[in-house]
Each structure stands twice: as C-alpha cells, then as structure tokens.
C-alpha cells in the first residue's frame, strides 16, 4: 500500500500541494525537540533505507541553539528523508509522513505535510505546558486543526518507559530512547531491518544497561507496529529496489565527501595537506573529519581566527605543501585579504566556503547560495581566481579533487563552494576507486639554472613553485607588485599593467582545461534553459524531468565551473529562447551571467533558508512556457 492520495488532485485551494504524483517514493519528516535525538534517528533510518537498496536524499534541519529551551518552537530539530524505488535527487518537498515528538514539532511542521498525509504524534508529550510552549491555545487534536490529515496518536513516551523498565537506567536515560522506539516503528512501516542500528548501539554503548535499554526500545517500537490491534491503523509500505548501477555503495554527507576529496586530491598531486581552519557553522565538520586523517599525511591546525587560518594555510603552501582553509560566509569575508596575497604571490591555496544563509551572522544553520559575488568579485583590486561549486554530497568529492588540481597546476588560490544543505545531507554514493583518477603530480622546482621566481610556464602561465630549503633558489616574494620574471619589487606602471594582464590570462586560460558545459536534461537548444549551480541540482533536475515528461520544451544546465566559465557556455545559452536562473539568493548567478553573456535572463530566486522545492521550479517553468 502507498500513502499517496490521488495524483490527479493537483493543488488544494490554498496552494498547498496535495500530492507529489510519485508512487515510487515517500517523504518522511521526523521532528522533535533538539534534545530528542532526531538527527540520530534520521541518520539511522537513512542507513537502513540505503541498505535496502532504496535511493534516498536527506535534509537535516536543526536550530542554531545547541540546547534551546525544551518544548519551544525554536528548539525544534527536524530531519527529512525522501526515498524510493527510482533515483532520488532531492529530500522532497512536502512530507507524506510527519512524526512529531512534541507539540512544538507539530506546530512548526504540520502545515507542510501533504493534505491527506499521515501525522504520528507522541501524545505523552502533549501536556498542557508543552502545548502552551508551542503556542497552541487549544489542543490541535481537538479543534480540527489536523482534520485534513490522518493522525495516529501513540503515547511513545510511556511505551518507551515501559520497554526499558527491566534495565537499570534512570527515567531520564529511559526517555532518551524515545527516538529509538520511534525508529523501530518507522523501520517496521517500511520493512527495514533493525540489524545495523543494533550494531550501532552496541558499538556506541558496549554491553551496558543503556545499550540494552536502547535496543529494547527499538525492538518495542517495531513490535508495536506488528501487533494486531494497531497494524490496521499504521500503514505499511514496501517500495521496490532501485536499479542502481552495479558497484559498492555507501551513504555519504557533503562534509565527508568534500574532506575525502581534498585528501584524494593531495594524493593525486603527490603532496601532503596542511589544513588550517577556525570553528564555524556549518563548516566545522570538515576540520573534525580531517583531524582524524593524519595517517594520510594531513596536518590540521585550528587557528586563532579566520584570518590566521587563511594565512597559515598560505604559509604551508609557501613551503610546498597543499595549504587548505575552510569556512562559511562571515569567515570567508575575513579571509579575503590573505586570498589577495595568494593571488599576488601566485601560490596554490584551496578555500572551501560552506555557504550559509544571511548577511552577517544571518541564519547559521540554514542554507543559501549567496557567496557567489563574494568569491568571484569580493576582493580589493583586480584579483581573479577560479571558483567551483559542488552540486550534491557525492559531487563534493569530484569537485574537491578538481580544486586541488587547478590550484597546483596554475599556482592560484581556488574557491570551492558547498552549502549547509549539501554539507549535512546524505545520499547513497557509488564509491569511486582511486585508480580511476589520473594523477597530476606536482613538481617543485629544484634547478637553479636560469631560475626566476616569476617566470611562467608557456602553456599554463604558472610560475615555478620552489620549496624553501632548496639549495641555490633563495628568493623573496610578497604582496607588493613584482617585476615580470625577477619578482623584484616594481612600481613601474607598465609592469603593473603587464602583470595584471598576465594574472588574468592565466585564470582565463583555465577555461580551456575544464570540461565543456553539458546539458543535464532536455535538448541542447530550445525554448527554455533552467540554469542552476550548487545544491539546487536536485530540485531543478527533478522539475525539468517532470516537465519534459509532460511535453514541455525545457532543458537543465548546471554550472560547476563558475569562474572561469566553460568556454562554450555563452554560446549554449544563446541557443535558448529564454534562460531562467533558479538559485537561493537575490540573483547573484543571474547578474553574473547577464554581465557575461549580454542577453536577457530571468531568475527564480528564493532566500528563506530552505532548499528549492521541485514544485516551485515546475511552477516557474510553467509560468514561462504556458504563455
């Protein structure tokens, strides 16, 4: 059985989607207090789902506060997963199923649930105080608030306490297992095995009472689904397996794939990495992951601030290592002076920007793609450098390798853009094999014969990279303009013109060393091209695929190399009657592309801290083609 309502129904009167028109996928949203262990619940369910050969995409959505006051709406943590028997590219728009572990979680989320969708509530947490804290004047179960949904009320709190009673755990510890009880129930609904989670619990808590209590709660939730009296109410769904390309798979988050990609890039370059960074949301997981990979020749340095992180990474690059730094919006702003120095001294440097929402502190845990201007144009003077963006968690691996390749080959800093959504989201990933990648070994110059610090390679225009410690090659570099060739300080106006032109030519030339722009879906020319970059890949691609199926003449173009743009991109865009950029900002790629290609381009723009939805992109396409 499937949870979908009639696909033909379209939209309800107030505009909320009634159906996803997908009978081969399900969207489940878990929501609870930030102390309820929602992210763990979501992660474990994702793992079990992946092991069942379903395709999936996830969206963890948590508050900025580490422990917001319990029961409040701003303390609600959520985790959405879309899974199915076809390839899933987004974490879904409206949930088919909402599991709300307290009234605040219900309050924040119920309106997004599909009309006719299922809401599972923990009634044990629906006391008067919690209702009040959530801002419900009247119990929403009684005043018709939920009449458009199917609700199942279960006292999960009490059942968890009951299940854990035999074990020597405190009431507080017992109640913490509520998420596992819930997981057991949802595992049962979708026929998931409990094995992986049991192994996880045992690994985490050993043979302790807590371990046993947690496993008991998990099993109790599962058994609850199975019991005859209730199974009539709780729907069970089995989705077929996806025909994945053959190979070995794992779940991967963007932060993991990006970190591993950086390590892989350094391996392919044949140099060790020095990673320097300062804690900031949502970039920090990269520092955490890399600090555990010292056996891969990775040295990590938690600097005193963002500026020092960029400067020390550059110092490491100066010694011949791959210096890398990472941050998010406000932290990137602080690094810009050091990036200018990297451009001036023509040293390799990779700067990872895991973009987050909003100017200044903004919304640190929410997602946005609003650092395009900052990375392409956000430096004093004419300071060109390559900018790349990853489109999905798995794609972070490839893009990170590409960033290291360009940085070392062209002796330049490179921006690598990710965002809060990609960093935290997980997807099944066909694990690549390192032998599939062509190494790009770095050769540090050692020959003193005819050495000039700012001589250039004929093909790439890169200058030689010399490690201090190399006999006979002592030289000085710095941020003052350098004479062409010798690198000595030069205030000569003509030389400044020449050096600026050379720095531009070097970066422009990269356009010939990157893959030509391809069209993801649809024809190479036609009525409408929807252009995206970064994490909007999933919703745009799904929307375009659906519209193609409905017979619309629409194509999807997704840009990885933002600067320089692929050499054929401008011509490609001119082959469409209309171009629509869909992005999570106020029009940065839009303005950028208009400046580069001088043709009318429109935008579908959104900055509400949430990923684009498939529906809104479809609507934007319809609005242009149904004229």
């Amino acid at each position, binding site marked *: 059985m499937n949870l979908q309502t009639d696909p033909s129904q379209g939209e309800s009167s107030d505009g909320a989607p009634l159906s996803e028109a997908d009978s081969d996928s399900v969207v489940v949203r878990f929501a609870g207090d930030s102390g309820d262990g929602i992210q763990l619940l979501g992660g474990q369910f994702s*793992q079990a789902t*992946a*092991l069942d050969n379903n395709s999936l995409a996830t969206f963890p959505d948590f508050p900025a506060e580490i422990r917001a006051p319990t029961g409040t709406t701003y303390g609600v943590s959520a985790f959405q997963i879309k899974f199915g028997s076809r390839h899933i590219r987004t974490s879904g728009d409206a949930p088919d199923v909402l599991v709300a572990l307290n009234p605040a979680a219900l309050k924040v989320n119920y309106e997004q649930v599909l009309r006719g969708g299922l809401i599972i509530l923990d009634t044990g947490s629906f006391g008067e105080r919690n209702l009040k804290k959530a801002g419900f004047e009247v119990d929403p179960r009684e005043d018709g608030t939920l009449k458009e949904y199917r609700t199942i009320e279960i006292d999960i709190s009490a059942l968890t306490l009951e299940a854990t009673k035999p074990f020597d755990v405190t009431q507080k510890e017992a109640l913490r297992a509520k998420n596992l009880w819930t997981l057991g129930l949802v595992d049962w609904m979708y026929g998931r095995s409990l094995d*992986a989670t049991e192994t996880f619990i045992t690994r985490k808590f050993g043979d302790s009472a807590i371990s046993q209590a947690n496993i008991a709660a998990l099993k109790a939730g599962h058994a609850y689904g199975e019991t005859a009296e209730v199974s009539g109410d709780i729907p069970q769904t089995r989705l077929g397996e996806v025909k*994945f*390309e*053959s*190979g*070995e*798979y*794992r*779940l991967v988050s963007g932060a993991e794939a990006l970190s*591993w990609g950086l*390590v892989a890039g350094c391996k392919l370059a044949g140099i060790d990495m*020095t990673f*320097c960074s300062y804690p900031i949301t949502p970039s920090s997981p990269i520092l955490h992951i890399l600090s555990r*990979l*010292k*056996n*891969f*020749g*990775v*040295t990590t*340095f938690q*600097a*005193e*601030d963002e*500026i*020092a992180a960029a*400067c*020390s*990474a*550059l*110092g*490491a690059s*100066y*010694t*011949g*290592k791959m210096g890398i730094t990472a941050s998010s919006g406000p932290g990137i702003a602080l690094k810009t*002076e*050091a990036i*200018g*120095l990297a451009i001036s001294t023509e040293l390799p440097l990779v700067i990872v920007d895991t973009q987050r929402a909003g100017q200044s502190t903004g919304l640190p845990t929410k997602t946005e793609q609003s650092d395009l201007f900052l990375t392409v144009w956000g430096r004093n003077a004419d300071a060109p450098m390559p900018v790349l963006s990853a489109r999905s968690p798995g794609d972070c691996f490839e893009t990170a390798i590409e960033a290291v390749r360009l940085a070392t080959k062209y002796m330049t800093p490179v921006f690598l853009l990710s965002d809060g959504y990609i960093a935290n989201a997980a997807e099944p990933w066909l*694990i*690549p*094999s*390192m032998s599939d990648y062509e190494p790009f070994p770095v050769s540090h110059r050692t020959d003193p014969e005819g050495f000039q610090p700012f001589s250039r390679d004929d093909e790439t225009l890169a200058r030689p990279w010399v*490690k*201090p*410690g190399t*006999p006979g*090659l*002592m*030289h*000085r*570099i*710095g*941020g*003052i303009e350098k004479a062409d060739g010798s690198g000595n*300080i030069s205030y000569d106006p003509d030389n400044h013109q020449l050096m600026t032109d050379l720095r531009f030519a070097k970066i422009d030339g990269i356009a010939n060393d990157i893959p030509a722009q391809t069209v993801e879906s649809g024809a190479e020319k036609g009525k409408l091209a929807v252009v995206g970059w970064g994490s909007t890949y999933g919703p745009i691609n799904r929307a375009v695929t659906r519209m193609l199926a409905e017979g619309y003449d629409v194509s999807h173009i997704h840009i990885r190399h933002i600067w320089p743009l692929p050499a054929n991109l401008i011509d490609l865009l001119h082959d469409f009657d209309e171009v629509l950029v869909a992005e999570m900002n106020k029009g940065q790629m839009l303005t950028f592309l208009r400046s580069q290609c001088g043709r009318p381009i429109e935008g579908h723009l959104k900055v509400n801290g949430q990923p684009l939805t498939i529906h809104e992109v479809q609507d934007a396409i319809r609005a242009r083609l149904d004229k």
Partner: protein
Amino acid sequence: MNVQVEPAKLKAKDFASDQEVRWCPGCGDYAILKAVQMSLANMGAQPDNTVFVSGIGCAARFPYYMETYGFHTIHGRAPAVASGVKIANPELDVWVVSGDGDALSIGGNHLLHLLRRNVDVQFLLFNNEIYGLTKGQYSPTSQAGQKSPSTPQGSVDAPIDACTFALGCNARFIARGIDIQAKQLGDIFTRAQEHKGASFVEIIQNCIVFNDDAFAHFTEKSVAKETQIHVKHGEKLIYGADGNKGIRIKPGAFELEAVTIGEDGVTEDDILVHDETNRVLANLLVAMKPPEMPIALGVIYCDPAPSYERAVQAQVEASMANGAGDMDKLLRSGNTWTVS
C-alpha cells in the same frame, strides 16, 4: 681516503641580497640588518634553510634585503603565515620581522597565539613607538601625550610594553636590545636562534624621521651607563659608570628598586642575581623604565618548553606509525553495500 671539505664559511655580506636597501638614511633599521646578517654568518646559518617572514611597515621590508628565502606578507599577519610555514616544515629556520604597529596593534592577536603556542620562530619586534610607513601616526607603544598627525593634541592612549605583553602571552624567551648595540644584539640573536620555541626579541629602534630621539634619554652615550642594565643569567644585576649601582628587592615591598652599593648601608650582597628562568623576576625586570630605573637589556627570560610544531609533527608521525592510510579503504569504511 676521503677528504672532507669544510664548506666555505659564509660572511655577513653573503646574507645580503642584491636589492638596494631603501630605508631613510640614518634609520635604526640599517644597524639591525647588519647585526642580523653578521649573527647569521657567525652562527653558521644556511641561507637556503632560512626564511624571513614579515608583515607590513618599514621593518617589514627586511626580507627583501636578505639572501635567504623571504615572504613579505600582509599587515599584522606575519606570525600566522610563519606558523603555517613552521608547521608545514619544522626543519626551516624561521625569523619574523615586525614593528610595534604590525605586531601589537593590527597583529596583536596573532602574536599572542604564536607565543602561547610556542612555535619555534625568532620574532624580532622593531619598536620605534611610531607608524613610520604611513607617515608618523602614534602607535600602541607611543607614550601618552605623543603628538602626531592623528593626535594633534597628544595621544590619550595608554601604551603597552612589548616585553610585558609577550610575558603575558606565556612566551618562553624574552630579550631586549638596542639598534645601535650590534655586539649585544648579536649575542641575543644567537641565543634566540638556539632557543627551541618562540623567541621574542624587542629591539629599540630609532625612527629618525618621525620620532627621532624618542629613546635618547637612555640610548645616548652620555647617559647609557646610568640608564641601562645588561642582564646576564647567574650574574648580579649591577650597572652604572662606576659599576656600583644595582637592583634589589625593596625592603618590605614586592617591587624592585635601584640602589647604590656603599650608600645607605647597601652592600653587594643585597643585589639580586639574575635568574633568567624566573618568570616573576622577568615581569619585574621588563617593567623597569628610566629615569627611575635602568632599562633591562639582554636575555631577560628563558625557560624552554616543547615547541608547538614538534608536538604537531609527533601526532602526525604517531598516526603514520601503523602505515600510511589507504584512500580506497577509507572510502569503504563503515557501512557499505554492493549492487550487482
């Protein structure tokens, strides 16, 4: 039979680059440059293993004049860049050249962390109590009341003492010298270079253009003997033209005082012996200011501790002990599944 050929001993001029030195004529920086080049020659330093890193300011031009590796970076950030250099390659001998504005104003945070982490670099702070390169504004070490283009009525800022700051940052090596005292500077540089960990050296430097004679009240030959004390570990804190002045703990107080031996019943036994490992004494010594007290020069504090970059390197080596990581294995760690 193998004949070992000693590499020709380098001279000071071998450490001078071919670049024309462009400080104002008469600037104290010239003397410091000569003293550094001379000391490097004397200590047998390898030019190709030596790196000079600087920020922005008059002093920051220093690397261009050295026939070594050099990196002229951005304002205040030299300690951060140097930390990256040293972490990435602990074998390099790294020197940082900075000024009072560069090190204590815009770059104060980085200097703090370089010192408390104990990164093995020599940090030379040229203190002229003024912004030279930007044409004479007052600096964080300028005396209160300093008139400058930005303080026409006199500065109302309280100045910071460079060595006191460094001690507060838990620096393990603190020394102070004067630009024109080449011999003493050479001794300090040698000690600083030998010291494993961050070595902080304040060099009193005369800016002849914007702050001339700011230090004349203790650097002038006519007053030097009475206003300077050159401290040496294990020796009595004695100074003065007649060698009869000394530093003792003021009876009944927790402070130092300058006394004359033979006057008011003071004997040589009352005079303190310099112990460079004594942090409390170091704090009192760096705070001494003429005319009430002589200025303390030489190695004021030296109490080595393991250096940062070696500890970082040790963790990497320990992680490598069981063999280098295998990328393919890493990608397959945790739960995986196979689709056939």
